[in-house]
C-alpha cells in the first residue's frame, strides 16, 4: 500500500493506456483457445483465478489507486450475487439484467458508505473498520431475512441445455471460461479507462496528497465517491459470475469476512495500485488451493496424519502475504515493472 502506483505522466497518458490496451488484447487472444486444451479440473481452477482477479481488480480501484483501504469488499460481491440470484430465482430475470441491477446497487451502497464515512471524516483504520462493519451488517441482515431465504441461501435452478442469456452451461463447458474471460477483460478495460480518465488522474492526485489536491480545486469528495462506485460495480460482477458458476450463494459465501480478505490478497501479492497486479496475484494464489488439496489427499509418510485436512492453502497465502509485505512491498508485478523500467 505504501507503493505509489503508476502516477501517470499526463503527457504520456495516451501511451500508457495504449500499452495496457494492447497487452489486454494480446492476453485475450492468447487465452481464448485455452478451453480447447484444458481439462475440466484445470478449467475449474481457471474460473477461480478469474473470480478472484475480478474481485481484486475491484478492490484495487478503490484501495490501490484510490488509497481508501476497504476491508468490506464482500459487501459489493454479495450485493451482486444476491441481486442476480433473487431476480433469477424469484422472477426469472436473466442474470445479465441482474448483473446490471447488482452493479448499480453495489455502486449506490458504496457511495452511501463513502459519503457517510467522509462526511464524518473517517480515515485510515477507522474507514477500514466502517467498511468492515457495513459488510458484516449486510451479512447479519440477510442471514435473518426470510424474504432473502435467510441462512439457507439460493440455489440457481438448473436448466437442461446451455444458455448465454441465462448464463448457465453444463459443468465443464468451455463457455464458462469464455464468459469469465469476457467479464475479466471488461473489468480490466474499465480499470484502464478509469485510471486514464481525468477522474482517475484526480483520484491518484488525491491519494498522494488530499490537501494539495483539494487546494488545487479538485472536488475531492466527488472523485473519491466515483472511485468507490466504479469499484463496487466491478465487485458486483465477480459476485454474479460466482453465483452463476457455482449455482449457489448464501450469506456467508456472499458477505463473509473471508470474501473481503480474498479481495485484498490478490492485489497485495500481485501489486497494489497496478492494473495487472490483481491478475498476477490471483494466478499465483488460486491454483495453490488445488495444489495443497492434492497434497493433503495423500500426504507423504511423516505427515500422514494430515490426510483429508484443510487449511494449508490459506496458511501459504498468509505466509506469502507476510513475505511480500516485508520483502516485496510492491508485489510481484510492481517489482518486475520497476526492475524493467530501470534498465
Amino acid at each position: 500500500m505504501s507503493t505509489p502506483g503508476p502516477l501517470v505522466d499526463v503527457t504520456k497518458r495516451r501511451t500508457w493506456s495504449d500499452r495496457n490496451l494492447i497487452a489486454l488484447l494480446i492476453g485475450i487472444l492468447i487465452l481464448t483457445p485455452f478451453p480447447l486444451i484444458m481439462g475440466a479440473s484445470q478449467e475449474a481452477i481457471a474460473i477461480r483465478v478469474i473470480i478472484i482477479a475480478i474481485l481484486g481488480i475491484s478492490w484495487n480501484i478503490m484501495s490501490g489507486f484510490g488509497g481508501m483501504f476497504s476491508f468490506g469488499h464482500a459487501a459489493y460481491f454479495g450485493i451482486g450475487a444476491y441481486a442476480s440470484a433473487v431476480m433469477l430465482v424469484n422472477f426469472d430475470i436473466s442474470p445479465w439484467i441482474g448483473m446490471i441491477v447488482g452493479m448499480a446497487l453495489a455502486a449506490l451502497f458504496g457511495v452511501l458508505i463513502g459519503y457517510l464515512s467522509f462526511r464524518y471524516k473517517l480515515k485510515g483504520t477507522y474507514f477500514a473498520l466502517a467498511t468492515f462493519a457495513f459488510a458484516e451488517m449486510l451479512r447479519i441482515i440477510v442471514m435473518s431475512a426470510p424474504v432473502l431465504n435467510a441462512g439457507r441461501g439460493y440455489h440457481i435452478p438448473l436448466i437442461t441445455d446451455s444458455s448465454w442469456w441465462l448464463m448457465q452451461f453444463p459443468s465443464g463447458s468451455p463457455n464458462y471460461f469464455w464468459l469469465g474471460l469476457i467479464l475479466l477483460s471488461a473489468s480490466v478495460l474499465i480499470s484502464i479507462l478509469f485510471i486514464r480518465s481525468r477522474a482517475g488522474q484526480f483520484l491518484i492526485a488525491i491519494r498522494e496528497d488530499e490537501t494539495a489536491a483539494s487546494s488545487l480545486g479538485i472536488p475531492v469528495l466527488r472523485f473519491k465517491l466515483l472511485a468507490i462506485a466504479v469499484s463496487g460495480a466491478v465487485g458486483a460482477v465477480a459476485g454474479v459470475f460466482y453465483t452463476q458458476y457455482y449455482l449457489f450463494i448464501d450469506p456467508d459465501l456472499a458477505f463473509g469476512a473471508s470474501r473481503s480478505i480474498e479481495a485484498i490478497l490478490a492485489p497485495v501479492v500481485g501489486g497494489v495500485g497496478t492494473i495487472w497486479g490483481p491478475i498476477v496475484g490471483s494466478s499465483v494464489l488460486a491454483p495453490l488451493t488445488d495444489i495443497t488439496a492434492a497434497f493433503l489427499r495423500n500426504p507423504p509418510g511423516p505427515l500422514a496424519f494430515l490426510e483429508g485436512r484443510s487449511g494449508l492453502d490459506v496458511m501459504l497465502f498468509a505466509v506469502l502475504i507476510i513475505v511480500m509485505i516485508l520483502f516485496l512491498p510492491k508485489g510481484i508485478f510492481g517489482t518486475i515493472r520497476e526492475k524493467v523500467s530501470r534498465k
Partner: protein
Amino acid sequence: MSSSQVSALDADTFGSFGGSDRAPLIRRILIIIGITALVLVVAYWRTGGSGLLITQGVVTGLLVGSVYSLIALGLTLIFGVLHILNFAQGALVTMGMYATYVISSNLGWNPYLTLVVSIPLLFAFGALVQILIINRSMGEAHENQLLLTLALGLLIENTLLLVFGGNPLSVRTGTETVYNIFGAVATQSRVIAFLGAAFLALLLFIMLQRTGIGTAIRAVAANPTGAKLVGINVKRIYIITFAIGAACAGAAGTLVVPFVSIQPVAGEVFTITAFVVVVLGGLGKVVGAMFGGLIVGLSEQFGGIFFPDQSNLLGVFVVFILILFLRPQGLFANAS
C-alpha cells in the same frame, strides 16, 4: 522519568475522567443515564413487562462483557502504543483455547490451571511476532501492519485447522453449579470467567499505572520521540506491548473454554466484538476498553431482546456504526 510527568502527557491516551472540563462530563453522564433508561423502558415493553428477562440480559451481558473487556484491553493497548489495529486478536484468543484444550485433555489439568501456561505462551508468541514480523514494518504505511496482522490471524487459524481439524472440541469440566443473581441464573464457569477477566484487567491496569515498565509503555503511547529522548528503548516497549496484548487474548481464550466450542474460527466473533469495544471506548484508551466491554456485552443481550428474530450481533453492530460515525474518538474521550 517519574510517573507524574507521564500522567500529564497521557491524559488523552489513557482516558482520564474529569479534569479541566467538568461540565461536558456531567452532560455526558446525563446522556448515558438517559440512554440507559430508554433502553430499559423499550426492553421492558419488548419483553411484555418481564423484569426477569431484563435482569437475565443484564447479568449475562455483564458476565460475558468482562471477557470482552480483557480481549479489547489487549487490542487497545496495542493500538495505543503501536498504532496498529490487530486483526489477529481473535485468533490469539483461539490459540489460548487450544493451549488449554491440549494441556487439559492430555494432562488432565483443571482448565483454569492452564492459565499459567496459556498466558506465558501467548506472551512469548506475541513477543516473537513483534520481533520477527511487525517491528520490521514499523513506520511504514499503516495498511502494511494491518495486512500483517490479518495474515497472522489467517496463519494461526488455518494452522489450527490443519493440525486439529475443523470439528468443535470441548474440555470436560465437572458439574456446573448454577448461581442465582437477583432471580437471574448464571453458571459457575461464566462467573469464574467474569471474575478472572476482571481481575486480570485490573492487574494490568495497576501495572500500567504503578510500575516502571507500565510508565514506559504509557510514555511511548503518549510520545514515542519524547520517550526515546529520555532513554526508553522504544522497540523493546513495542515488543512488550504486543506480548501483553497477546497474553490478554490468551488468558481470555482459557477463561471461555468451558462454555464455548473450541474451533479454529471460534475467535472471529471475539475479533469483531473487540473492534466494537475499542471503537466504543476510544481506540487506544484503556479505561474505555474496560467499560466498553461491558457495554458491548449488554448491547448484545439487549439486541437479542429488541430484535428476537435477529442475530445477537445486530445490536452490537448498530451500536458500532452509530459510535463510529457520531463519536469516533470514543465515548470516554474528552471533547475533541
